[in-house]
């Protein structure tokens, strides 16, 4: 087997651009996921019965079916059903946003419920209103449980993001395939973007560790 990276050189800037494309869509999906996920988590913890049922069903469906299926459904079904020609970018952030909302809602729910029940009772006994209690007492403490798990979700999302190459969105993965096709060599570009994914994930992991250490330190202040 002979590897030849020289042929690939002119395509490198094109592939590097994929980093930005991938990160952009992961970031947008994450914001959507965090917003919807927070809402779902609050529904699950203290919503009225119908909203709670909805949140539970939502989570079950999005965690219980393959992400690539959700992506395909949105990309192919939306134009068929509504006539609206959805772009790959829009399909990608919708599918990944809705999907990560399900995972993030579970992370937030678990993080909130891990806060000592005594904290809630102490706030209640002082007459603190529900919203203020959540915002000032419960969530800041839940945040310490949530943040490390959320970093894992970011990492998963970054890796899984390669799935959008299947609907033609020009992310890192897709660019490797395009380059591979045009120079009739698949192996080198795949290795190249593989390395990029790995570096991205390592950077995120390091950031996550740093955050975790910070949180631990503030426990014993």
């Amino acid at each position: 087997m002979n590897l030849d990276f020289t042929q690939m050189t002119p395509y490198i800037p094109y592939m590097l651009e994929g980093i930005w494309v991938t990160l952009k869509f992961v970031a947008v999906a994450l914001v959507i996921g965090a917003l919807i996920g927070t809402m779902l988590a609050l529904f699950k913890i203290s919503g009225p019965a119908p909203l709670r049922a909805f949140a539970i069903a939502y989570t079950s469906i999005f965690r219980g079916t393959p992400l690539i299926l959700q992506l395909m459904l949105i990309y192919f079904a939306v134009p068929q059903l509504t006539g609206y020609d959805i772009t790959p970018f829009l399909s990608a952030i919708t599918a990944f946003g809705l999907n990560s909302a399900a995972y993030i809602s579970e992370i937030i729910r678990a993080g909130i419920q891990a806060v000592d029940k005594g904290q809630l009772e102490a706030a209640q006994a002082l007459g603190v209103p529900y919203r203020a209690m959540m915002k000032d007492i419960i969530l800041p403490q839940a945040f310490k449980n949530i943040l490390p798990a959320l970093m894992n979700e970011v990492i998963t999302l970054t890796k899984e993001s390669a799935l959008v190459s299947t609907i033609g969105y020009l992310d890192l993965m897709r660019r490797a395939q395009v380059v591979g096709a045009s120079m009739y060599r698949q192996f080198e570009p795949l290795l190249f973007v593989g390395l990029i994914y790995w570096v991205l994930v390592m950077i995120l992991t390091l950031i996550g560790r740093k955050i975790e250490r910070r949180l631990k330190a503030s426990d014993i202040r």
Partner: protein
Amino acid sequence: MISVKGLVKSFGDLEVLKGISTEVDAGQVIAIIGPSGSGKSTFLRCLNKLEEPTGGTVDIAGFDITDKKTDIRAARQEIGMVFQHFHLFPHLTVLGNLTYAPMKVKGETKAQAEEKARTLLKRVGLSEKADSYPASLSGGQKQRVAIARALAMEPKLMLFDEPTSALDPEMVKEVLDVMKDLAKSGMTMIVVTHEMGFAREVADRVLFLDQGKLVEEGTPDEFFGNPKTDRARDFLEKVL
């Protein structure tokens, strides 16, 4: 100040309080004693609706809290509560713990709340801890901060659920001293406790709970000197 009539509390099929009635006047200190599982905490928690009473009525600090229309948050502002395990807010400083609710709930300014907080910290002997975080305090110090936090809301009465049970023996006194001081100042207090010495010395009246019933009540002299029921006698023999 408090009027409880026929208070019943069930958890599912388990009836924990089986019709408790009692009256407490302003300025009185009541000690609640009884074996583990007799319903002491549940009784106390029904008084500020941390547990929802199943039956009966509770009038407290001018609020009928068993009436669905009652603004329970308004009632709770008048009812301070101190827990066995303190439940200080770990992410706030001692000062933050004392000023949070007065500012958030009663709309006090930061300056007002801090001034009052510092006075209270002085009263419980912890002035120098204002900027510390709870994690750096001893158990006794935490409980004194918790008492000050409840007092910062200027409640009409105070509920204590075994405030010294989680403390190392050498720290019990500092907390009891703060409570004695509070009793002397005329605060209405309901104290669930295993500290018989405290009950004897400070309480105006002792309530003895067993298996969800108010079996006996009387002055400390009556109760400790001459218990009327067998159950109270048995209990006292075990703990004294």
